[in-house]
């Protein structure tokens, strides 16, 4: 069996955005890596924002320096501004579907509206998300579209928040997806209504109905006339939709809808995350596929040990799936990008992190380097390093509070910055 086992330069454990971003970075330098993932993680609940420090400061570079001075244990303490700047720019240029916030050429934070209706500072967002509040004035009319079939809707919360915080008039427009499609082709309907009508299905439907956007727009217009009698259509400046308008072609749909409705159409940041997460996941997977990087799903790491092979020390990792099938991997470097909340799925029976680590038959590391490398017995072996990136870093740093993690440092921002740092170090070791 050991003869057949796969040999990798880098084995990435965890297929969330941290793991995938690292794989992407390594692939660009032609490093042989693969991802092993249980297939469930916090990335599946990504809502469409890139956060980096919860500060609403124009000058992020200065805030960052201050933050580092006040938070000596925080993962960000180990990062330099140049790396932050580089890693985010690299990310945003790789994925043009994001909008990156800038101020005089520097990265900056801006407010976006969360699904609860609260404002939250972010460094970037998915392109189609509504964020530009400065343009609202007393005469602005904003229509908030609520699909009654969209089970996770929080449009009423958002409407209330907008009313309480911004000038302008805000109206909820209730649309029924089923009413919209009831006159359409019977075959389309059959495929839609087989099984549960999920948000993903609705989004897929819009992806496949580009030619029908006019019908959708007409429906919106007619419902405005019916439901909002006092609203003059030509004074509407924004239409805010829940993110159900497509998974792959949402930019196109939004653009066309805006044109026909003669007002800017945007989406809302979603607590219901399935669609946003799927969008970014698709982008990542496409990119990794182009680079021929394997993503091995539904596998759980069950043991890890150091072995000697041809005079070199390498890691031997054993993965297994739910059916008990096992796979052995050998790798020079291992990166834990396993997050902190979903080690084996939040609602599964198995749980305890410590038990899993005991199963690794390695002692817990006694130090953790500035490149997020786990150092055992104070020896850094450059030929067989083991790293952590993304929020998994919190598993290894003692003395961090939950506030450090939740308020200032997790999410896509942490994943981007730390995976870049780990990637940089591995490249240096491999030179």
């Amino acid at each position: 069996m050991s003869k057949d086992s796969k040999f990798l330069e880098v084995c990435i454990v965890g297929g969330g955005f941290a793991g995938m971003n690292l794989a992407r970075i390594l692939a660009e330098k032609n490093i042989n890596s693969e991802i092993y993932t249980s297939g469930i993680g916090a990335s599946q609940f990504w809502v469409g924002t890139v956060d980096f420090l919860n500060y609403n400061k124009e000058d992020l570079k200065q805030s960052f320096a201050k933050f580092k001075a006040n938070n000596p244990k925080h993962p960000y303490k180990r990062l330099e501004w140049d790396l932050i700047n580089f890693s985010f720019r690299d990310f945003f240029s790789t994925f043009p579907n994001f909008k990156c916030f800038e101020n005089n050429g520097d990265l900056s934070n801006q407010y976006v509206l969360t699904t609860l209706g609260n404002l939250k500072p972010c460094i970037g967002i998915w392109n189609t998300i509504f964020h530009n509040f400065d343009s609202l004035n007393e005469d602005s009319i904003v229509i908030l579209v609520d699909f009654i079939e969209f089970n996770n809707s929080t449009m009423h919360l958002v409407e209330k928040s907008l009313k309480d915080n911004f000038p302008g008039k805000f109206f909820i427009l209730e649309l029924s997806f089923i009413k919209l499609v009831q006159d359409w082709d019977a075959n389309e309907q059959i495929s839609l209504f087989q099984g549960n009508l999920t948000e993903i299905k609705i989004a897929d439907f819009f992806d496949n109905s580009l030619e029908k956007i006019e019908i959708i727009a007409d429906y919106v217009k007619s419902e405005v006339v019916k439901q909002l009698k006092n609203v003059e259509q030509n004074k509407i400046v924004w239409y805010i939709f829940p993110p159900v308008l497509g998974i792959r072609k949402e930019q196109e749909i939004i653009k066309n809808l805006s044109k026909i409705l003669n007002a800017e159409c945007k989406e809302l940041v979603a607590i219901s995350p399935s669609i946003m997460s799927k969008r970014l996941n698709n982008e990542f997977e496409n990119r990794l596929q182009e680079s021929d990087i394997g993503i091995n799903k539904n596998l759980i790491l069950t043991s890890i040990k150091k072995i000697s092979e041809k005079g070199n020390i390498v890691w031997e990792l054993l993965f297994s799936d739910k059916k008990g099938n096992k796979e052995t991997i050998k790798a020079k470097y291992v990166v834990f990008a396993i997050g902190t909340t979903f080690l084996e799925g939040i609602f599964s029976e198995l749980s305890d992190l410590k038990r899993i680590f005991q199963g690794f038959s390695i002692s817990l590391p006694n130090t953790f380097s500035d490149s997020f490398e786990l150092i055992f017995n104070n020896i850094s072996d450059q030929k067989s390093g083991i790293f952590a990136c993304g929020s998994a870093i919190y598993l290894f740093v003692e003395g961090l509070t939950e506030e450090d993690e939740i308020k200032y440092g997790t999410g896509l921002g942490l994943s981007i910055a730390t995976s870049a740092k780990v990637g940089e170090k591995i490249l240096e070791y491999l030179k």
Partner: protein
Amino acid sequence: MVSSNFDCIVVGGGITGAGIARDLSLRGLKVILFEKNDLSEGTTGRCHAMLHSGARYVYKDKEAATECSVENEILLKIAPHITEACGGYFMGLDREDIEYGDVFYEACKNSNVSCEEINIKDFLQEEPNCNRYTKRVFKVKDGYVDPFLLTYYNAYDAVNNGAIIKTYCKVENLIVKNDTIIGVKYFDLLNKKRDEAYGKIIINATGPWASDLEKDLTLSEPLKIAPTMGTLLVIKDRLVNHLINRLRKPGDGDIIVPSHNSIILGTTSKLVKLEDLDTLLPEKDEIEYILKLGESLIPTIRKHRLIRFYSGARPLIASGDPLREVSRKFDIIDYEKEGYPGLITIFGGKLTTYRLMAEKTCDLVCKKLDMEAECETANLPIPGGENKVHKKVFQDELNVDSKTAFNMQFKWGTFYKEILNLCEHCLDSTTFNAPRTICECENVTEPELSWVKKNFDVKVIDDYRRRTRQGMGPCQGLFCYFKIANLEAKWTEKSHAQIMEELKLALNKRWKIETSADELLKRQIKFSKYIYLLGGNLE
């Protein structure tokens, strides 16, 4: 401003207070009730929801056993929609248990508590998850009662009969004028206002908090309360369909109650200080201890996730007896002998005997007011309980799936028609004729939430949970609290900031158990914090 005079002021909105308010208002008295939190949020909502047959108390507490046995029958009759006559078993595992079986059987007979020994094979067929090395089994008439809804329906009926119920209003002082108690001063916590109410009789139904109200009086014999804390665990999955008791003298961790989609396992008995009553939380080793005891009843119990735990305080009078042997009977304390004929404290008792406690208390009130009024509560159904509405009716009329119907049949009784009328505004997308589900774990639909909003006086977001079981399931509200907040925004004039405040409060109540939680539960709470604090930027 509540300025008018009441016949009776009830302090405390647990099942005892709500039961008294209903009984008095049915007898035609003018009643007001004050509760410092929400109804059923104290001891009532922290019990194991067991409808005692009395069997548990036959050994030491014959009187309480007989009371339970009679009241059990009455409750099943007047509240078929929120009770379940599922029956219970006493299972014996070791030699001591087997010997206790004979004593137990005799004692049941002496207390008129129905009890029959049954074949172990039959028992294991009924309850395959229970210990297969069970040596002896008795079947009794234990049942389940929803303690929350029992309280709300009592309060609902009281209001329909003219009573006023004020939740989130804390009675701070008695008003004593010329050595006579004439009313109470209270603080309205939501509107941040102090006010007064006047009445002829004050009933202290605050359970373990009862001595708070005595502080303004000079008493020769003040109440000596020794509340004991009982801890209960909620385990995912309905592992048993009957109540399971260990066949022995009442002890720790020897009861399992099936409750909706889960089971409740408990309990313990530990003295607590009066000043800690508002912040009871079990410690890790106590949870571990109960799980260990639970394993002897259901050996595989640890394979099922612990989704919640809580502790309640029993209102017990201090005495020299060991904690488990303090009587579970109730006392009605008339302060006439202390020179205050206008004050009554009702104390002790069980959820099962709440109606009897209310009846006796109200009898005393009527005697004091020199009124003749019959108690009707033993025969008059609790609203919604006029007849039993079965699962199939919910399935057919409301078009809900089998699991939702199963949960609905233990909640709404004959009110299903009103809920049906609310359905058309919130239909589900998949079928277009079933109501939309908001809480996926406990299968709570939008019209149910809408109905309790209209009828059960929902003041803040957290109130929905006790009235519908929303957020009580495996995800503990993680995936439904934002929808609840959205509904509150849709249905009320509240500001966005206020809704966020209430949402935070409700979530914090779910998160507060973190310090004693196991790893899995901790991660779930952390994830919930990700979603709301980070994703939603809830400050």
